[in-house]
């Protein structure tokens, strides 16, 4: 009898995008390059996950339990060398040119190896997303320039997205809730800009960030009407980092408290002016929630694959664990759920390519810009031109034509659904897997208990699943009710 673990998922050398999602075959007939790019991304991510992330994920988790501020820089540099940190930038500019589909394939591989490391390596794209949402040409170009330069020099460059406050989680992510919130932050208008004060908490990468994209109301009495988005360098006077939290899981990724004590932000760094901050948040959420669902699906997959690997060799008094009828039913049931959520996740990712900001990369303007020689594209003169108001607004207007309000509503709906489905799957699968493998399989060395610890927070961040369900209902049914009555 063969007792070696089956070559499956992460533990298989074969790329399985098309095996898992055979429906893509039809798409490949018309767009072979699109599918090939995603397959390449999966192959690169699988290789990196297996060779770099997996071997050290347990050790890093342990080091971070002792010291929450420990950071695995070696892993980050290895990822940076392979450009995973700037993967979303067009290839011609120096990035990897990942489509949302390619991104999804990579996120699945990374998060099935280690969710915390995934956040460290790939969540930086939040910064680019933030810039793309406003799409002011000058901001986007200067950000891309900074990212490319940093990557080439091997220098860390982290962007954080600071939304949550000690007294406001859901309230910062929902318009109806924001109206009634009690903000603890205040962006006071001063000459030439704003003065930011307050506390943000549970901020991913907050302790590492070089730039923070932050939402604060200009008038705390009217938070929804005055919410604004700012881009703040973390060396600005008055900015400081509080403690790095001691979490249950995802320990490799740092979560910190951020303090703002009269931090001055010039008008040029106001990304969304007062009253537009919520829209900015909502647009980012329309993308990121779906990706968090994808991460959840990845965590579930990682737990399941480790379980199958363990069960294939574990002997019980009745024979191999994987040969037990009850275990096979449980595993098949989990594989079934995984397939269903994965289908939804990739459908969402392809929709991002078709209708959301990724579509901009396909536009002539961006393709044209990417064709410009490096020197010119990233030169200061072009940057100056882009900062010129009419040129900058042109980008914004162009983008709003593609990503309309209706498109956003659709993505909030589908993203919220996927977020809940994926993260519930993460929790359910990672917990059930431990029930199957029992006490010994729950030992740290097999990695399944880590998947379980990592999973729980996915149901909480990026809007609690309850907040996501409210959004889903509102976008799918609530709007109809308003129309009828």
């Amino acid at each position: 009898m063969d007792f070696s673990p089956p070559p499956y998922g992460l533990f298989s050398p074969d790329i399985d995008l098309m095996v898992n999602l055979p429906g893509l075959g039809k798409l490949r007939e018309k767009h072979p390059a699109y599918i090939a790019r995603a397959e390449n991304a999966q192959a690169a991510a699988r290789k990196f996950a297996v060779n770099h992330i997996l071997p050290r994920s347990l050790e890093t988790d342990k080091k971070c339990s002792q010291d929450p501020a420990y950071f695995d820089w070696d892993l980050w540099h290895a990822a940076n060398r392979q450009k995973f940190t700037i993967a979303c930038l067009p290839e011609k500019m120096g990035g990897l040119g990942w489509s949302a589909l390619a991104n999804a394939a990579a996120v699945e591989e990374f998060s099935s190896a280690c969710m915390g490391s995934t956040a460290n390596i790939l969540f930086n794209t939040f910064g680019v997303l933030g810039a793309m949402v406003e799409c002011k040409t000058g901001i986007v170009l200067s950000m891309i320039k900074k990212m490319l330069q940093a990557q080439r020099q091997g220098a860390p460059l982290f962007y954080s997205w600071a939304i949550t406050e000690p007294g406001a989680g859901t309230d910062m992510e929902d318009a109806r809730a924001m109206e009634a919130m009690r903000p603890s932050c205040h962006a006071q208008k001063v000459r030439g800009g704003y003065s930011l004060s307050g506390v943000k908490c549970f901020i991913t990468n907050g302790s590492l960030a070089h730039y923070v994209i932050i939402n604060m109301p200009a008038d705390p009495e009217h938070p929804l009407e005055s919410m604004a988005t700012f881009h703040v360098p973390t060396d600005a006077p008055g900015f400081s980092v509080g403690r790095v939290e001691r979490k249950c899981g995802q320990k490799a990724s740092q979560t910190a408290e951020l303090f703002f004590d009269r931090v001055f932000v010039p008008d040029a760094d106001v990304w969304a002016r007062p009253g537009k901050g919520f829209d900015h948040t909502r647009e980012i959420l329309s993308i990121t929630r779906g990706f968090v669902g994808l991460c959840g699906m990845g965590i579930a997959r990682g737990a399941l694959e480790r379980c199958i690997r363990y069960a294939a060799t574990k002997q019980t008094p009745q024979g191999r664990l994987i040969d037990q009828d009850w275990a096979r039913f449980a595993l098949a049931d989990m594989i079934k759920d995984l397939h269903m959520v994965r289908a939804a996740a990739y459908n969402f990712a392809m929709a991002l390519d078709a209708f959301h900001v990724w579509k901009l990369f396909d536009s002539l303007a961006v393709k044209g810009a990417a064709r410009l020689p490096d020197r010119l594209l990233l030169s200061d003169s072009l940057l100056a031109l882009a900062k010129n108001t009419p040129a900058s607004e042109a980008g914004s207007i162009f983008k709003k034509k593609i990503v309309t309000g209706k498109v956003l509503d659709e993505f909030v709906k589908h993203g919220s659904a996927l977020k809940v489905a994926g993260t519930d799957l993460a929790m359910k699968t990672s917990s059930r897997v431990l029930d199957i493998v029992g006490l010994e399989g729950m030992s740290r060395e097999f990695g399944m208990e880590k998947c379980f610890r990592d999973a729980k927070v996915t149901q909480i961040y990026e809007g609690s699943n309850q907040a996501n369900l409210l959004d889903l209902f509102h976008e799918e049914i609530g709007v109809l009710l308003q129309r009828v009555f």
Partner: protein
Amino acid sequence: MDFPKEYLQVVKEIEKFAVRELREPALEWDLNPDPKHLLAFWEKSRSLDLPFIPVPERFQGVGYGPLCQAMAVEALARQCPGAASVFVHHFAGLFPVQFAEEGRQSELWRGVTNGQGGGIAGVVLDGEHALTLTMKNNDWVINGRSSLTANVSYAGWMCVFTKANNQENLCLIVPLDAPGVSLGPDSELPGLKINPFRSLVFKDVKLPPDAVIKISETSQSIKSQTRDLLHAFIAAAALGAARTAFEKALAYAKERYQYGKIIIQHQEIRRMLGAMRMNLDAARAFLYAYFDEKSGVHAAHVKAFCTDAAFNIVVDAIQIHGGYGYMHEQGLEKLMRDVKVLQVLGGSNPQLLVDSIKG
């Protein structure tokens, strides 16, 4: 059910004691599970006669039965399921002692009340039949490696159930300082960290003939009674944790303001709390029904039902707390990890359900 008044009195004392001695330190022990913390706690618990609850009165113990022991475990687990788990295995390991001959009994009970060798017991059920027992020159010889076992950091002796080479089930008292006994590596389970689980490695461990508690056909029944008790105590520990999680979530829901009101005013939060309370009460009723012999309740079912219910309650308590629930200082994520271990302790729940029905 009607709990005996004297048991309720005992539990009240234990609850006060646990709030005082466990509530604060439990989080620190979770990060730094140095055995000295628990040993100091155990020492203090002796002043309440906590470790002697099962010891018969005629041996200077309290002499209260398994129901009282389960209630004690539940009370302790409300503050720290890890510390409670040490009592779970201590109480289960002491159960077979009452079947020993009078002289041997007296000796073993005295070890517990005097605190010699810590006075802490443990139990090895060897469900995986990993141990072998042979008779050599009038000595029993044990070999093999047990599955992961609780209390190995604390116990003076373990009550070990295993089959002799003639396939007879025996119950032995094995001192952990016997030559040839060693510990496997720390398994680093996610929860119950103050009680690190390790396997026990027996290499030609020689024991005198009187190490066997009782040589008779009832050993099998003592083994299943011990396992049943272990299951009931594990259920009690999980429910103690769940009760704390529920109470914390209820209190937090009355404080936290979100979406224009305190969150308990949201129907969905109340539905969650309602489901938590319902499952908690149902599980507790099921657990304590087990101690009514007439109920015919299966101990493995009690364990599976109560630990599953407790797990869902703790997870929902974290959800109600949002990000705060995921942070160590809140104590809820520790409860989730602790209950997760309780869920698979004594056999994983799906396996127990399969085994509970004869096919």
